[in-house]
């Protein structure tokens, strides 16, 4: 059997980065722009100034255009998973969300998984109804059910997250995932137990529970927060894993837990090193040996993909028709490209598989593997080796980075 290369084959997974938020959270290092909101009486939130809605419309058009360009440039088969991440995609409002959805609808397979991220604030009635109608999976950014913990993260005070989950359920949304964080400054085992108890009550289909990563440069990092010690964080992590397993979730990736049949198929595609396209400013794509990132600037992004009449040359300019820049055609936004050699791909394969404990044939990763590293890891119960395939065990998953580093050939 030929070893299977990472990220090879036709594209079946698409990510769309929607870089708008109602406010920035102190711990976040995603690219997003702030769009101030005004909430209409009982209706959908709308940008506070009408002028602010034009960029959102142009953004939706630009993504649709990029998608067309990408489909022409790559072998794209039926799209099995489509993920609107952010930022806060729900901020677009249901009208634009529907328009965006329709740009992809024709390419979606029959049982495609379509996910939209939202915060409890934006998960209003209208959104819930739309999500249920499109049978969309919702990923809800809760971070903690305790307002005190959300404040420690520097997250704007939000509507009650539990209410948002109930609202979505009531509207008929069938697949809900909740995002949580552990290792928050001041967080105790009791705080985590509280979140677990709320989860037991809400019973979402899926939970992503991350350890807080204090990313240098974020406002949170500048506050030099007192996060729990290494040992305390290791204990909280285990508490999270055990607690969720007791509730019937399966620990299928470092930070992801699902009820049977409810894994995030889109994310699983990354961890299986399947090729994917990322649309939108800051989004990353990987197809075969090539990875690129669209410039993380919404203005540049829109300007490249949607040259509006304002940008068209004036009549005087038209007198010199040889000017290559006119008239302007939609073109891909500025990109940063990385080419991935075979060894790099093999290392990524190993690294991603380690997160889920999936088996990797030794033959596929041999060139990047330190052959002497396998036996001690197996002996320590961190790795298993069966019929020529290695797999990082549950015990190994907690220390998966170090296991990979040990496995890599120097």
């Amino acid at each position, binding site marked *: 059997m030929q070893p299977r290369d990472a990220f090879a084959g036709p594209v079946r997974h698409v990510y769309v980065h929607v870089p708008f938020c109602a406010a920035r959270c102190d711990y976040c290092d995603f690219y997003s722009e702030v769009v101030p909101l005004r909430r209409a009486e009982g209706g959908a939130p709308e940008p506070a100034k009408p002028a602010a809605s034009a960029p959102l419309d142009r953004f939706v058009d630009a993504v649709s255009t990029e998608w067309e360009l990408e489909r022409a440039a790559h072998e794209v088969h039926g799209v099995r998973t489509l993920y609107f991440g952010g930022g806060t995609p729900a901020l677009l409002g249901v009208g634009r969300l529907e328009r965006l959805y329709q740009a992809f609808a024709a390419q979606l397979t029959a049982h495609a998984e379509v996910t939209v991220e939202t915060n409890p604030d934006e998960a209003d009635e209208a959104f819930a109804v739309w999500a249920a109608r499109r049978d969309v999976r919702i990923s809800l950014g809760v971070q903690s059910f305790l307002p005190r913990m959300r404040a420690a993260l520097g997250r704007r005070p939000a509507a009650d997250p539990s209410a948002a989950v109930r609202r979505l359920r009531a509207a008929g949304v069938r697949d809900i995932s909740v995002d949580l964080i552990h290792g928050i400054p001041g967080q105790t085992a009791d705080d985590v137990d509280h979140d677990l108890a709320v989860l037991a009550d809400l019973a979402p289909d899926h939970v992503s529970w991350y350890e*807080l990563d204090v990313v240098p440069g974020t406002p949170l990092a500048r506050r030099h927060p007192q996060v729990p010690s290494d040992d305390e964080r290791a204990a909280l992590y285990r508490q999270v894993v055990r607690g969720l397993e007791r509730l019937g979730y399966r620990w299928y990736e*470092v930070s992801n837990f699902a009820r049977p049949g409810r894994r995030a198929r889109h994310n699983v595609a990354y961890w299986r090193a399947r090729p994917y396209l*990322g649309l939108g400013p800051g989004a*990353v*794509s*990987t197809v075969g040996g090539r*990875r690129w990132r669209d410039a993380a600037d919404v203005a540049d992004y829109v300007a490249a993909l949607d040259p509006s009449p304002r940008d068209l040359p004036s009549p005087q300019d038209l007198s010199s028709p040889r000017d290559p820049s006119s008239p302007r055609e939609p073109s891909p936004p500025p990109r940063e490209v990385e080419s991935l050699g075979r060894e790099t791909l093999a290392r990524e394969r190993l690294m991603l598989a380690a997160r889920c404990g999936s088996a990797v044939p030794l033959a596929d990763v041999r060139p990047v593997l330190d052959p002497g590293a396998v036996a001690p890891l197996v002996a320590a119960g961190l790795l298993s080796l069966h019929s020529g395939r290695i797999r990082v065990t549950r015990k190994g998953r907690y220390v*998966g980075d170090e296991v990979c580093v040990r496995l890599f050939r120097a």
Partner: protein
Amino acid sequence: MLPFAVAMTDLTHIRNFSIIAHIDHGKSTLADRILEMTGTVAERDMKEQLLDKMELERERGITIKSQAVRIAYTARDGQTYQLNLIDTPGHVDFTYEVSRSLAACEAAVLLVDATQGVEAQTVANAYLAIDNDLEIIPVLNKIDLPAADVAEAELELHELTGASHEEILLVSAKTGEGVVDVLEAVVGRAPAPSGDPAAPARALIFDSEYDQYRGVIAYVRVVDGHFARRQLIRMMGTGQQAEVEELGFFGPDMKPAERLETGEVGYIITGVKDVAHVRVGDTVTDARRPAGEALPGYKVVRPMVFTGLFPTEGDKFEDLRDALEKLKLNDAALSYEPESSSALGFGFRCGFLGLLHMDIVRERLEREHDLELITTLPNVEFHVYLTDGTLQVVRNPAEMPDAGRIERVEEPFVSASVIVPSDYVGAVMELCQGRRAEFVDMKYLSPHRVEMHYRLPLGEIVLDFFDQLKSKTRGYASLDYEFWGYRESDLVKLEIVLAGQPVDALSLIVPRERAHARGRMLVEKLRQKIPRQLFEVPIQAAIGNRVIARETIKAKRKDVLAKCYGGDITRKRKLLEKQKEGKKRMKQLGVVEVPQEAFLAVLELDAGDQSR
């Protein structure tokens, strides 16, 4: 052009002298001034510490290697003299260099910093000069400084050399004040060389240097007869014959000449590449008209301190060998033999004169040869007498035989002299007591300064004794020591066992009464230095099979980045790759990854351990 570069100088107009001093008392500065004032070096070429050729010497402000330079000096009597000045190192590690240089001289300028007074190497060097029958010209330096205490320093110099008030010169090497008087004293008080120009040629090799293109450059002092270009010469000790390719003198760069005459100092190049054939201390003679008797040579210098040097990257062993070979060409006192360690791989057990010497060699290896090295704990050479009556020489603690086979262990002792203001006598005594030192005697150099003599194990000195001495006497004490002899001690081998595996590179030989304390501190230090691993790592200190201290490094419980989605893969992979790269700086001992710093833990242990 210098007059004697072409014309021959008669014996009565030659003076060969050294400047000897305690480190930092101003030898190099005085030499600079002399070169400048005599026009030996044009002003535009003048740079500080001119005779310190090595980059390392300049940077550290220490002289490591002797230098010889020929100076033309027109004295107050109107005559022009040829002065050969030999600059010498001032650190105790390099005393042998001084003694060799002195053998090529008739006089020594004994330089004393007037702000410091007589120090340990002043005394040691003065005795070397007296042993060599040299005329001593006592000089007090740094009189420009307000802190100079001329009266006190003069008294001490008088005690040491018997010199009268009139004989002691006062100078400032910095400003140049009084420097001419030094030159006048050299001309007036130092004897001219006493060799026989008509006798068969003889010259003493007092130093050598290796040049990769020209082979060995021998530094010589002609004692009898003369040497000329194309002459066939013979080394009397080794029997090596060769033709003189080039000879000349240092001015201060090498200046070729036609002949080297009786009494002159210069160099000879024969094209011989093998330093072993041109030994320092050997006598050069005319092969066709050989002298009957060789000149008295020198004691072969013996390394006193040993340490393992290992490349951090395993494949650099051959590079290290080449580099050591090259350094050895210019450093007779350096010794090395291959050593293999289960912990550190292949390297060399190297012998040095002392810690400064070791430090310099290591720095040159790293800097000039681009190597990264791990150094094991320095130790002395132990003589282990076995129950079967044989003697085993142990330079590496890992090679210590089992206790059951040992009849007794002897270690080298030195006799040390410490010079210190009388206020600090108590502090020195306290320090020495903790070092298994035996008090010999004590004498007053002046009402305020004392010279104390001790006999103590060299092993107690090699690590941090000097630093401790300095810190306990607020920098006032100076130290000199020389090998005294071997003596029995109650010593044991302390072994470090990491995850069940003894780590040879971390074992050490210690006095039995200190083994427990050392063992405990060492395992504690290692626990701090070794990061948590995927596996639990027990650290034990043991004597034989008896574990005397134990610590455990707990296994890592979590090491995984929380998020890794499509946009994170590159960043995350690079992170892991970087971590892998970082592991190159770790040594793999079984399953345990040990950072290089851990091997230095043993060193720090001594520095931090003030309670002993």
